[in-house]
């Protein structure tokens, strides 16, 4: 277990938060482009200042707590998602020597934290004392339970191949070839589960505006709402980073770029993919979504494990 120097730790913390905030702009701009619009382009060069403007706006918004809400819980809920997501970055192996902690059980740690994040939504929905919020949080809970199951199973193939839960070792193990090839089914399942875990479109059922007016964050405004928002972008970034780590060789890449650059580049591609999904796909019905998880993805990942195991046994 190695610990990064304080400078590295602070650097990682700041850059993840900044990246998450900046993603707000990226998302709006990209969606604009994909929808043949211009997107935010007025504030600063290329509209980059939009993030700052949004931040300023959200800081000065009335931070309203509904009188019927359960106040302490209502306040804590958005912080949970921020904190858990930020803590998730602790195990991300950015590059050799760049990282916070190097746990042997890094992957498990990641799963643990991403399950904890759902408490944020459940508590927010409960504390809001609003039927839409409650519906949203019920959906969030059910969604996490269902999709986490095969998210874990999907990663097991990788673990079996690498023989370790240590994320750095998993990256090292991909020296001879990224796991996306042997573990393609696992990759697909993990990707779907990752989208569902950060409840991004098309799997944004817990907040489905058209059906339940924003779900768990219906009653939130101001900075608390902003925290949910940033939490969501942190989730995207974290999940993209883990995807890259597990299946795309992490920092590995031809030597003309430093390892960290490879890592960032690969992560960025996945972030953009997340945004593309939102721009292109429609939200499924809730029952369809659930049966897809249990009836398609779960068997798929189980089969993947069986096949990986069988192949691993037969090829010593």
């Amino acid at each position, binding site marked *: 277990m190695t610990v990064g120097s304080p400078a590295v730790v602070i650097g990682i913390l700041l850059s993840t938060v900044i990246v998450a905030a900046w993603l707000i702009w990226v998302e709006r701009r990209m969606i604009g*482009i*994909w929808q*043949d*619009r*211009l997107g935010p382009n007025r504030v600063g060069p290329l509209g980059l200042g939009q993030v700052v403007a949004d931040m300023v706006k959200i800081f000065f918004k009335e931070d309203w707590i509904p009188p019927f809400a359960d106040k302490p819980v209502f306040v804590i809920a958005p912080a949970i998602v921020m904190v858990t997501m930020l803590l998730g970055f602790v195990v991300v192996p950015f590059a050799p020597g760049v990282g916070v902690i190097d746990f042997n059980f890094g992957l498990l740690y990641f799963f643990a934290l991403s399950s904890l994040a759902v408490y944020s939504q459940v508590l927010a929905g409960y504390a809001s004392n609003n039927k839409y919020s409650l519906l949203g949080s019920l959906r969030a809970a059910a969604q996490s339970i269902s999709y986490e199951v095969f998210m874990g199973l999907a990663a097991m193939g990788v673990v079996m191949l690498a023989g370790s839960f240590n994320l750095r070792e998993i990256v090292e193990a991909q020296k001879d070839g990224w796991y996306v090839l042997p573990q393609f089914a696992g990759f697909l399942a993990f990707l779907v589960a990752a989208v569902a875990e950060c409840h991004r479109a098309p799997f944004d059922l817990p907040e489905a505006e058209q059906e339940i007016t924003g779900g768990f964050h219906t009653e939130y405004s101001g900075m608390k709402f902003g925290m949910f928002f940033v939490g969501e972008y942190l989730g995207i970034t974290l999940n993209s980073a883990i995807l890259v780590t597990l299946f795309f060789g992490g920092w590995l890449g031809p030597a003309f770029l430093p390892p960290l650059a490879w890592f960032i580049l690969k992560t960025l591609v996945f972030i953009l993919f997340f945004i*593309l*999904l939102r*721009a*292109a*796909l429609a939200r499924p019905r809730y029952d369809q979504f659930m049966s897809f998880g249990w009836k398609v993805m779960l068997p798929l990942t189980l089969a993947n494990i069986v096949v990986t195991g069988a192949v691993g046994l037969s090829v010593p």
Partner: protein
Amino acid sequence: MISQLRTLWIVLKHTFSRADTVQYPEQRPKLYPRYRGRIVLTRDPDGEERCVACNLCAAVCPVDCIALQKTEDVDGRWYPEFFRINFSRCILCGLCEEACPTYAIQLTPDFELCEYDRRNLVYEKEHLLIQGTGKYPGYSFYRVAGKAIAGKDKGQAENEAPPIDVHSLLP
């Protein structure tokens, strides 16, 4: 599944297509006469108010932002005593124009309806009524309707036979 992937691909291709929107207000889009903006009330070819206060526009309006009252002039024409549109509610859907049997109410390409005071968005008949016929130049409702008005007696509308002489015994 395939269709989802295809959708992703199609959307991705749009990365390289030109934006359909323009940099308003420096650039302005071309708006066609059928664009749905600020509403006007128009007049007959002969310069009379077209609106006959039939209330169909008010009934069809999904946000209920039209209120009017029928009255009648000495000529026998129906017209609105008042006609009010609350533009702070109007969603410029154009249903009123579709419902109007006289082409009186029409939407225009003027969409710049901004006010600092919502009250200024309440338009009365004098704000709505224009001098011309708008998009439909030739139409006059009373020329096809059976109701007699000054200058158009029974039997003088389009496709009308002269009034029956009820005392005649001829078949």
